[in-house]
């Protein structure tokens, strides 16, 4: 490394962290203080905004609602993706390439295209404002993400493992449960993490498909932000809470982040 540029990554990371620091700094301010002045360090830091969000049902239910549909989505996505990823990795069937590519198409789909039909379909099924509606809508994106990531991990397992398991008399089910799953456990965690994150950060669909009972925190932020723009520190606190799951899980999965972001194409 030439010393001249050795600091570039550190500088870049510091710049990336500045807005996050700013968000935290605002969230610690008194609810009414920001309208008038600019400060880098909150003068009288307080946790009042966090206390308010965590005790006000309108707010904390928003996080709970998001958590519920996100977890439903993760269970469905990883559950159906696992056998499919195995098939893509191990079998050479006609149309395999085309099918694998069309999965990429799903991941690349524009949420705005799906907005109107999803609203129509879930209205017809009387599922508007339910967690399952959001979870299913998000499956459009998360199932392909999970298949691509898992396919990458399964392809890293030598075929000989399958063959010796079969020679040892394992049934398909027992092979998956006792041999393959333990070997690709980081892959399953990575796939689950990326499904979780897609669903957790998504706004357009989750907001449009919910009204009250299943409204995620993002929808509440959007409502409060639109009406009461004075509540900047409160919204900042809501934003900080929205960051928590991603940061915690990213720390746990730090070694597999690149593998996940590349849809299983880097190892």
């Amino acid at each position, binding site marked *: 490394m030439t010393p001249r540029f050795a600091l570039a990554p550190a500088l870049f990371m510091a710049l990336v962290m500045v807005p996050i620091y700013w968000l935290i700094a*605002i969230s610690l301010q008194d609810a009414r203080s920001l309208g008038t002045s*600019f400060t880098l360090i909150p003068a009288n830091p307080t946790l009042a905004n966090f206390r308010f969000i965590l005790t006000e049902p309108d707010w904390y239910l928003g996080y709970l609602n998001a958590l519920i549909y996100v977890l439903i989505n993760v269970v469905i996505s990883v559950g159906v993706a696992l056998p499919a990823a195995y098939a893509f990795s191990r079998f*050479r069937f006609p149309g*395999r390439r085309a099918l694998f590519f069309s999965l990429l198409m799903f991941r690349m789909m524009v949420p705005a295209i799906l907005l109107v039909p999803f609203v129509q379909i879930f209205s017809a099924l009387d599922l508007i404002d339910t967690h399952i509606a959001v979870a299913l809508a998000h499956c459009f994106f998360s*199932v392909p993400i999970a298949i691509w990531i898992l396919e990458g991990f399964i392809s890293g397992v030598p075929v000989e493992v399958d063959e010796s398991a079969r020679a040892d008399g394992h049934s398909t089910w027992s092979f998956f449960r006792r041999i393959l799953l333990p070997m690709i456990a980081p892959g399953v965690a990575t796939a689950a993490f990326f499904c979780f994150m897609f669903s957790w950060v998504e706004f357009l669909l989750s907001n449009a498909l919910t009204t009250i009972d299943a409204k995620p925190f993002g929808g509440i932020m959007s409502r409060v932000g639109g009406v009461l723009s004075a509540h900047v520190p409160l919204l900042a606190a809501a934003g900080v809470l929205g960051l928590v799951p991603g940061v915690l899980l990213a720390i746990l999965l730090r070694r597999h982040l690149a593998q996940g972001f590349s849809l299983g*194409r*880097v190892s």
Partner: protein
Amino acid sequence: MRHSSSQATTALPYLLPALMVLALVGGVPLGLVAYYAVHDTFGGNVFVWVGADWFVKVLTSPEFYAALGRSLAFSLLVLSIQIPLGIFIALRMPKSGPLVAAGIVLLAIPMLTPQIVVGYLWKVMAAPETGLLTQALGAVGLTLDPNSVGWTWVLLVAMDTWHWTGLVVLLCYARLRTIPDAYYQAAAVDGAGRWAVFRHVQLPRLKLVLAIALLLRFMDSFTLYTEAYVITRGGPGLSTVFLSHELVQTGLIQFDLGEAGAMAVIYFLIVVVVSAFFYRLIVPARADEARR
């Protein structure tokens, strides 16, 4: 790998659950979009076949081309910044060390931030008087004018660069670390300079991850909605009305199902063509990697 035509019947039970879910949550809504695109509706329950009328309307609409142009311009702008910047940072990152693991998590944080929070954060950063960005620019004598088209674009590009450059860094860095030291030693023996090492040792091995990064970054910036909408609501004027915004406006606000359907079909076709183009880059690059 087993090669036989009977593998289709073997593979089917494994694929079936995923295919059923995707048919339900994918096939049905996409079919509905295509149906709307070729019908006119009265009150949302009587549908009349109108053929290509809506497509003609969309393809002759100046608003559509304006929004398409803005989306393409935005994508090209952010790609031309984020790809080189991401490669540069990845190249300069130390190979190992206690700070690397922490750095990787830090790089990922913007990407794990809820979209509404990203938009909201940057809106507050650019707030007149109290915003951090406004203040920082003020300190070097610049005025962030929220009513200026130029500044609003700068703001959105900065926001997206903050949000997504980490993706390019993470992918390139992960790939660079897998290049054996022997390659660098060989290059050093040949007396290769930094640029030659990059050009002949590193860049060829980054092909696959760069194709993936380009694809993901193109699509996600081309379909940007929430973050930009929260910050600008399409303004000033119509200067930041992107294609997704135009589509949501037509479909959900004006409730013009036919026109929105036709626009969605055209949007979808652009997505397919671009993805197919990048996929052709990814597949040979993957085969290349397998040979190395």
